[in-house]
């Protein structure tokens, strides 16, 4: 194992270069740009991922963000186990009605200020499950959404571009009006 580690140290980084912030995301966020919350948060954001009825495809790509190639933590992002420690809720899925209450409560448990990122076509309301008796339809119907990242599933690089926009903009969370 030592040999393996030495080889890794000598081999240089495997991470790819971080993408530029997605223009779409910047636009969406700029629309809500208000005062400097950065000063309060510093350069780090803590995420809490919530699967609200995903097919698990989006989760695989969110997982990939943590791998050695994308290495999310170098941008100051980190996933937390508890919503109490989180700044950003990353939500996937069309919001299965069975998950609606759990999604709301998890979001509610996170301290203010907080942001919500809807990840994937399902979460954005354009996925294949929308319209069923068992689905609410989109995340924004349950909790206020600050940023939509489309794709089925969005690639890690797309996620990264959206999230970098989130931290580069100094945003105020979307208006708090939840059902």
């Amino acid at each position, binding site marked *: 194992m030592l040999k*393996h580690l030495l080889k890794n140290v000598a081999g240089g980084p495997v991470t790819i270069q971080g993408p530029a912030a997605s223009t779409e995301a910047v636009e969406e966020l700029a629309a809500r740009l208000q005062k400097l919350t950065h000063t309060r948060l510093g350069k780090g954001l803590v995420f809490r991922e919530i699967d*609200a009825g995903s097919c*698990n495809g989006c*989760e695989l790509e969110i*997982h990939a963000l943590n791998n050695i190639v994308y290495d999310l933590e170098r941008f100051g992002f980190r996933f937390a186990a508890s919503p109490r420690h989180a700044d950003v809720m990353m939500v996937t899925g069309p919001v299965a009605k069975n998950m609606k209450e759990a999604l709301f409560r998890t979001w509610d448990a996170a301290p203010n200020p907080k942001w919500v990122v809807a990840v994937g076509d399902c979460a954005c309301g354009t996925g294949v*499950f929308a319209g069923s008796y*068992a689905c609410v339809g989109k995340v924004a119907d349950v909790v206020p959404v600050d940023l939509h990242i489309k794709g*089925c599933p969005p690639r890690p690089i797309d996620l990264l571009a959206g999230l970098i926009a989130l931290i580069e903009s100094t945003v105020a969370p979307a208006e708090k009006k939840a059902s």
Partner: protein
Amino acid sequence: MSETTSLSSLLDQIGKPVEGHRPWPRIAADRKGWSSLIAAMAGNDWTLLGLWGEPKAVHVAVADVPAATYAVVSLDCPERSFPSFSAVRPGAIRLERTAQELFGLTAEGLTDPRPWLDYGWWGVRQPLAETPLEPDPNPPRYEFLPIDGEGWHQVPVGPVHAGIIEPGHFRFTCNGETVIRLEERLGWVHKGVDSLLKGATIENAAKLAARLSGDATVANSIAFARAVEAALGIEVPPRAVWLRAMMGELERIANHLGDIGSVCNDAAFAFMLAEFHGLRELVAQANWDSFGHRLMMDRVIPGGTLVDLSIGAATRYDELAKTLRSRVAGLVHIYDTKPSMLDRTVTTGTVSLELVNSFAASGHVGRASGRDFDSRKTPGYPPYDQLEFRVPVFQDGDVNARVWVRIREIEESLKLVEQIVSKFLEKDFAGDDRLVSEVPAGVGGEGIAMAEAFRGEYLAWVRIGADGLIQRCHLRDPSWFQWPVLEASIEGNIVADFPLCNKSFNCSYTGADL
């Protein structure tokens, strides 16, 4: 019913085959025939492969694997009531609970008649019955299994879990650190897949099938496509048959790599997570460059495949296979020589052969406990009859055995990838470059198929109307039969070992929640 009756002779006795159901026969049984099948199942080891409802009918897929007999048996139940399989096959319990809730059927004698997917939040009851019911204004509270005795406490976990993972509720009853019972409460991600499939075009239904469980999207798509092709008598071009196998094996490799890394991470060996997930990423990137999708979603379609494999891509996968083989071997050596790692996986979460057999738990879960079943071999589907590979089977049934099945399966799948690649490099398709056969419009039929995913076999059953629309489609995730085994695996272990057990299974929540 004598024990020597074969399944095929019993099928002859209990009813007539329905026309237009392929490739297995579908037998229309009467109540007596249905009940005699249940009675016969009690006295032998035939496999229950699936059970699904309709507004006034119920179907069961059964197999006598050594005799290579596979069939669907159907019972019309105008009174919306059918005798339950649950007493002879525990794997039927959750499927029957689901049929009760979605279709308003009654499974007579169901050993666990509690609700399953319906929490009272859908705004409708029995959504797929002929006449769905108004929601219950006061849905009854879900009753967990009663606990008796002294000195126990409970740990409720979920639905929202601590990691980046699907939601489900686990209720641990413990005595000190030791788990005495785990009860699962699933259904949180029920999306109404069966209702969305009903009336869908084949194209849209294929998209839904590809998303039943996104981690096994290729296998799901293969199962659905093959069921449609069986129903409509479509012959798939040879090139597409091989492309499907290629994508199926890449999916298996990627998921096993990810899961081995995650099991190690749950024993706090983060180095392995970093390494294995890095390897998984190599596969995903090659998939993006070669097939235009990192998970290869929607690349297998009814009739064939959407994409081809270029010579350049074939060469790249050939090299990738070699890289993975050597890098995985190095990591496996580390895994196998770290006592602190093995201490967590060896003898943890053990399940017996008897238990996996009683549930027909497939994939690595079954094969780690000695259940030698792989749908690529039996009943088998092309092109696996032309490929050389072994199905690794282990006996210990613990987390370590499930890790080893995955290690060996990665090795086998790498060999398969190389065999398939050489077929493409040698341009071995007699100049036949077709990727997809036409799906005839305005033809109906019924079909069934299985496809082996990294976690076990997906079963797809489809009935297509003369208008070319899906009348009923049931997609059965292997997790239906693995989740109950996971409950048993943790008994007598400590709570802290649950993540290891859970990851070593990696059952799908979405696939079984429908």
